[in-house]
């Protein structure tokens, strides 16, 4: 083994190039939604501040913890693939998937409380944004979980190794994007006033 200083590793983009273009497109769409919310609020901050107080901040914060933790498990799965630790790959993907399931459960209870109180998209502009933004994100959590389920089946068959982890890295990048979007969405819609 060469004990001399190793040359720096070449810079490398994890996963497939295509997934990063897809992620970028998704992020731009959300950037438009986030800005639309913020500028719509600027027209009527009193109304937005009033109805924001009806949102369940605890549920929003709990969901942040669930997505951040789910993302963390998926990084651990990628790290496990890089050291060829097969059991840890599928275990961490499964744990990440369960965090996603927790997020959806919390969100369903939150929606049930709001819809049960007779709130809908047409109630007012604030709720229109709250429901459409969170629901659009909700759909992305579901897609992320479908991807994690596929990764889990593949990992169980030993598809990911230190030599070939591109598929896993691509799916992981999408899952982290879902986390990244919620990190903006939660303070913007639930807390900032």
């Amino acid at each position, binding site marked *: 083994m060469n004990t001399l200083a190793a040359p720096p*590793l070449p*810079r*490398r*983009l*994890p996963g497939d190039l295509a997934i*990063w273009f897809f992620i*970028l497109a998704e*992020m*731009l769409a959300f*950037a438009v939604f*986030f*800005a639309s919310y*913020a*500028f719509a*609020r*600027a027209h009527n*901050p009193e109304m937005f*501040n009033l109805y924001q107080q009806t949102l369940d*901040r*605890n549920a929003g*914060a709990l969901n*942040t*913890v669930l997505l*951040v*933790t789910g*993302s*963390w498990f*998926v*990084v*651990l799965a*990628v*790290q496990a693939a890089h050291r060829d630790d097969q059991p840890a790959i599928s275990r961490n993907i499964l744990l990440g998937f369960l965090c996603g399931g927790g997020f959806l459960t919390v969100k369903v209870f939150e929606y049930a409380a709001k819809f049960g109180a007779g709130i809908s998209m047409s109630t007012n502009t604030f709720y229109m944004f709250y429901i459409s933004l969170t629901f659009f994100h909700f759909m992305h959590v579901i897609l992320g979980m479908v991807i994690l389920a596929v990764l889990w089946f593949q990992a169980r068959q030993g598809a990911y190794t230190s030599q070939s982890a591109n598929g896993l*890295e691509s799916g*992981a*990048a999408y899952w*982290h*994007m879902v*986390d*990244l979007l919620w*990190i*903006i969405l*939660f*303070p*913007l819609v*639930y*807390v*900032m*006033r």
Partner: protein
Amino acid sequence: MMNALSNPAHRAWLVLLIATAITWYLGEVGAAGTGAIIAMLLIAFVKGRLVILDFMELREAPLMWRLLLEGWLILVSSLILLAYWISLK
């Protein structure tokens, strides 16, 4: 403990949880106005950056991709700040 924190993913996760708790707390005490908005945007920026660099693992990626995602974070934070600034006028 120190060993566990040598993994950037563990460090990022810990900071993300603490930052989430701070944002939640600011909501609980009803923080509002310019100072609160800037604080929350800064926290969101730090969190987003950790996800981009340590979870998406773009720290060692070609610079263009790292800048594209970090640039998105700056763009979104700036637009939100601008809109809130307008609403405070």
